[in-house]
């Protein structure tokens, strides 16, 4: 028996060394990140190196993390919520779990990219695009509206990611702009026309390999791939829908503070710093949101994207959207 307990102690210390000792709910600084680890971890590492603050990061889908914060309520270990879209932040804010940010922070970015009540703010901008394999979709075939994708000619050809919050935000916008019935109808057409993936990056891979003809993704996945392998080697292109189409939705990845931990504000400040904003430009091809940092050359400026005027605060209706998507049987 003694031996067993000695072994148990040894194992506990091994595990401790491996960095999985039980999280001290007060001591650790915990960030819930609803974005891809591949894109965000290098930035976090940079923050840790600069600030000396240890960060515990929990990666998952933004909607999942939003639901998780609601489930955890006041017990939530999260100090900061860094979400892939404004809708997940809006939903958590609506439930009263986000604290108001300082005005000096909020004023770093334009009002259309932050919460009306100051509980969350954008960190980087992105645009929804139509990604298509150039061998399988001709330019003449390009849809003028995202609603056209419901047509029978697109059966089984469109990659979508219904569990991904950027897709969910687009559906929220669709329901707000075109009405819930139109959105529901479009989603049920996607049950036939769509091929379901987990993430934007998976859709892009599938379009590139020709496994699916086209897909709905955020713009920067395509640029990141192009920067990685060379744009001339890509098998796919991206296109915008006609002007004012919801398919061109402009959105932000954003951040909100959940706890009273003073490190939370410091972390948010970092995300809005020139260093981080430049990281979004160089490494992820996203749009910077602060003045003085320019988007990547060749990218249509964010305010010239032919997107509909849409209040990002309205994306908070994430819960209703999830119900719509589930009702269509896509999840």
């Amino acid at each position, binding site marked *: 028996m003694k031996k067993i307990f000695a072994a148990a102690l040894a194992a506990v210390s*091994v595990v401790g060394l491996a960095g999985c000792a039980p*999280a001290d709910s007060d001591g650790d600084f915990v960030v819930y990140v609803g974005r891809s680890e591949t894109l965000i971890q290098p930035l976090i590492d940079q923050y840790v190196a600069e600030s000396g603050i240890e960060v515990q990061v929990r990666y998952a889908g933004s909607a999942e993390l939003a639901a998780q914060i609601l489930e955890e309520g006041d017990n939530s270990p999260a100090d900061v919520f860094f979400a892939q879209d404004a809708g997940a932040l809006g939903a958590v804010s609506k439930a009263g779990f986000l604290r108001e940010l300082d005005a000096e922070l909020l004023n770093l970015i334009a009002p259309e990219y932050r919460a009306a009540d100051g509980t969350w703010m954008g960190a980087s901008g992105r645009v929804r695009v139509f990604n298509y394999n150039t061998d399988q979709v001709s330019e003449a075939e390009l849809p003028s509206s995202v609603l056209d994708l419901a047509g029978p000619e697109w059966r089984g050809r469109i990659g979508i990611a219904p569990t991904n919050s950027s897709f969910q935000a687009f559906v929220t916008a669709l329901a707000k702009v075109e009405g819930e019935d139109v959105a529901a109808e479009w989603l049920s057409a996607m049950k036939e026309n769509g091929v379901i993936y987990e993430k934007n990056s*998976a859709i892009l891979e599938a379009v590139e390999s020709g496994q699916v003809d086209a897909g709905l993704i955020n713009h920067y996945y395509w640029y990141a791939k192009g920067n990685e392998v060379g744009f001339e080697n890509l098998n796919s292109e991206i296109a915008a829908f006609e002007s004012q189409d919801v398919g061109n939705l402009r959105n932000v990845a954003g951040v909100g503070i959940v706890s009273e931990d003073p490190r939370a504000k410091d972390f948010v400040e970092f995300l809005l710093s020139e260093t981080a904003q430049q990281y979004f430009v160089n490494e992820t091809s996203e749009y910077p949101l602060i003045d003085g940092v320019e988007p990547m050359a060749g990218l249509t400026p964010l305010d010239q994207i032919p997107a509909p005027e849409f209040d990002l605060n309205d994306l908070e209706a994430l*819960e209703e959207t999830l119900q719509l998507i589930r009702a269509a049987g896509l999840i």
Partner: protein
Amino acid sequence: MQKPPVLTVVLGVFAALLAIVPLGYLVLRLAEGIEAASAELARPRTFELLSNTVLLVVSVSLTALVVGVIQAWFVVRTNLSYPGFYAVVATVPLAIPSYVLALGYVSIFPWFSGFWASWLVLTMATAPYVFLAVSAALLRVDIAAEEVGRSLGLSRLQVFLKITWPQVRTSATAAVLLVSLYVLSEFGAIALLRFDTFTRAIYNAYRSSFDRTAAASLALVLVALTLVIVLLERRYRGDYLMQRPANPRRLKQDLGKLQTPVTLLLALFGLLGAGLPMAALLNWTMIGSSATDLGKLFAATLSSAGIALLAAIVVSIFALAVSIWVVLHKNKLGSFIEGLLWSNHALPAIVVGLALVFFGANVTPWIYQSIWLLMIAYLILFLPNGLAAMSTPLAQVPKGLTEVSQSLGQSYRKSLTKVILPIASPGLIAAAALVMLTVLKELPATLLLRPTGVETLATRLWSATEELAYAQAAPFALVLVIIAGLPALALNASVRKTYAEVNEE
């Protein structure tokens, strides 16, 4: 008989409470949201999931039966060349977690998804269970009866169907039910192959609805399905201990011209069940070797190993306590507790994970997102494995030894720690090792419950596949097979027994 040591009773009762409380909480929670739950269950989607799940369970069970019986028959009952080699080929998929098998396939054929893909992968992953059970039964078949049948003019097929099969049927049925349970609770492979059954739907409902009652209600339907099969399994179990005939003789049929086609068929099974997917993963690992993040791989291996070691110790302590109780001091409470713990052996891991997320976040926030909540999940899931593996070596210690030791003036406790446990220890250590290897491969509960910032081989593999990054996922898959799968295969008692018996003559 002596009373069981207090510590074993305390640990046993504690384990039983841990095993029922989270699920009890799930039911309670569902009762609160009964309206939302019934709305969820009434969705057409639920019926779609039900029919998908049943379709997959039934079809995989049938084909796994066919594949396993074919492999067993040719290896045991014919003059196949190198039967030992083909016994290894038939069992080697046991070393590969089914999501790794699935990953191997999708990495070669990106279009590989949906029902047929899941059917193929799970058939290959589960056929070894049928092979092991049926070959064991075939080795014990009464040859004399077959000879009589032949002499009375029955054809070979008639002999098989009328005389051999009835002697094998019980083992085969038990194995098929085991296969059905495996398919019901399978999560990783099915999610990777994008086929919607209950497990995948539970995970998705959990991730993408604010009202988590939806996930809970789907989980309970899955538990109900599982119960049906467990009850069936109970009825058919019990034939595992069939003795070999006193004078083991095997009638080996001459394959003649069929030698080559049969060899090709068995090789094809081996290729589908292990060769092809493993070659693909090896290939991806080499292609992507320059980009492989060795630091990440090493860190994931280390935390996988640390977590699995800790889990093995936790599970072993409880398994040993309960085994001492029920093997050496059988009483009513002990049997009840054992039965209760056993009833969890088929519980899908995704359900346990879900129940513990709810329970942890609301009732025990102090262990929420800590390693201990994960340990509780492993305890619930793998204590039955531990019990099965630990009670045998304990039961094999000759009873007289305890009496001798006590008659020489040793206290009971001393006899236990100085005599019984040391004698049983090789078996106990093997049991603990098996638990550790099983934990290494666990995916769904780990995914839901791992502490913030902790990544294991399985979760790393999972997140890479979510991005279709096969070159990234492949090394994690290979390491899993090497450190968990192959050792588990080598330690598996029925695999070793089968190898030995097939090679006997």
